[in-house]
């Protein structure tokens, strides 16, 4: 039997790897406008700033606003039906004066950072960027790419410090009974009450109309306290990947290729 020497795979320089997505950093530098589709979510960029984010792992603005009756579900559906995308629906609500400006801005930022956390999660497939003139800076606050990346890294570190095992983040959850349980906070009790062997943290967040990251914080704390665990043998809920845009020339890739050729 011959033993072939396999050269080690190139490893990215750790210090340079601070940016969560090199593609996103480049898009911010060129002040790009369009939609970045990643495995666990999408980011809408307008002139290099994040104006909107969506992820199947986190409740959207509509859920946050309607879950506790801040906005009537019918009013959200009406706004969504009259517009082409959730950010436009939010702008319509802003113009309509149905909601206090502060409440809408707050929920918009909550939903953006929440979805952004998942959209920037490590992925197994490369992201794709579609240059598109739809996203535009609107009256609702936008966030610089670096701010979203920094916050996402900070949130990862925060969860890691609470309980280093991410198993409970995406799997169905079961209750556990520690011998001497520590007292629960009201927000933790709400989470634990919904642990039924089927729901994942995302499912609980949707049910509570609560940010998914906020739910993860309590899930990790409850896991650390021995009150819940990932269901044994459960295959972590595969996150439904975002459908990549079809029949669309991969302009981002072509641009990179052009840049690389020009650099030769």
């Amino acid at each position, binding site marked *: 039997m011959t033993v072939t020497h396999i050269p080690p795979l190139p490893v990215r320089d750790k210090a340079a790897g601070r940016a969560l997505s090199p593609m996103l950093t480049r898009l911010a530098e060129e002040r790009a406008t369009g939609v970045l589709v990643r495995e666990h979510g999408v980011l809408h960029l307008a002139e290099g700033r994040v104006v909107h984010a969506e992820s199947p792992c986190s409740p959207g603005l509509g859920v946050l606003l309607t879950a506790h*009756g801040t906005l009537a579900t019918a009013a959200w559906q009406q706004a969504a039906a009259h517009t082409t995308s959730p950010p436009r629906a939010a702008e319509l609500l802003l113009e309509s004066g149905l909601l206090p400006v502060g409440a809408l801005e707050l929920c918009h930022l909550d939903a953006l950072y929440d979805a952004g956390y998942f959209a920037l999660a490590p992925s197994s497939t490369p992201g794709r960027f579609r240059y598109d003139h739809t996203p535009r800076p609107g009256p609702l606050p936008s966030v610089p790419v670096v701010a979203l990346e920094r916050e996402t890294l900070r949130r990862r570190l925060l969860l890691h410090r609470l309980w280093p095992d991410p198993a409970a983040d995406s799997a169905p959850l079961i209750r556990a009974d520690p011998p001497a349980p520590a*007292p629960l906070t009201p927000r933790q009790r709400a989470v634990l009450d919904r642990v039924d062997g089927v729901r994942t943290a995302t499912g609980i967040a949707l049910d509570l109309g609560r940010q998914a990251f906020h739910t993860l914080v309590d899930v990790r704390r409850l896991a650390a306290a021995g009150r819940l665990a990932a269901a044994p043998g459960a295959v972590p809920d595969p996150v439904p990947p975002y459908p990549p845009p079809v029949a669309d020339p991969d302009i981002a890739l072509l641009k990179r290729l052009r840049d690389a050729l020009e650099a030769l």
Partner: protein
Amino acid sequence: MPGIDECLLEAMRLPGARGAALVDWTSGLALGTVGEAPGGDHETTAAEAAELARMAAEHGAFALHGDGADDGRPPVEDMIVSNRDSYHLLRFLDTSFDSTVFLHLWLGREDGNLALARIRLGEMAARLVLG
């Protein structure tokens, strides 16, 4: 109706105001900042203030024990930290949607009027989310 920035700028018009921020106490994220931050860094200040706010919001010692204890609203209205040269006033927002947010006002002790600031910050917090 004020947005986040207008609310923070209004807080800065209070006598002795040095800096203000809107902070999420679960994540430690500053959703808006204006003016100075103690130590010069709003991000660090927000994360540290969030720790303190979380303790007050979650620990049983500061919870309500009578009627309305389980209505899901924040039990604590505000917190005051005074040091030898300034006050820190933290006002929890009572929102109709699920949130864990507070306003943080940093006030110089020499020019600040704590009683006035406490009343006004409460009004601003209500206007921000209720219109």
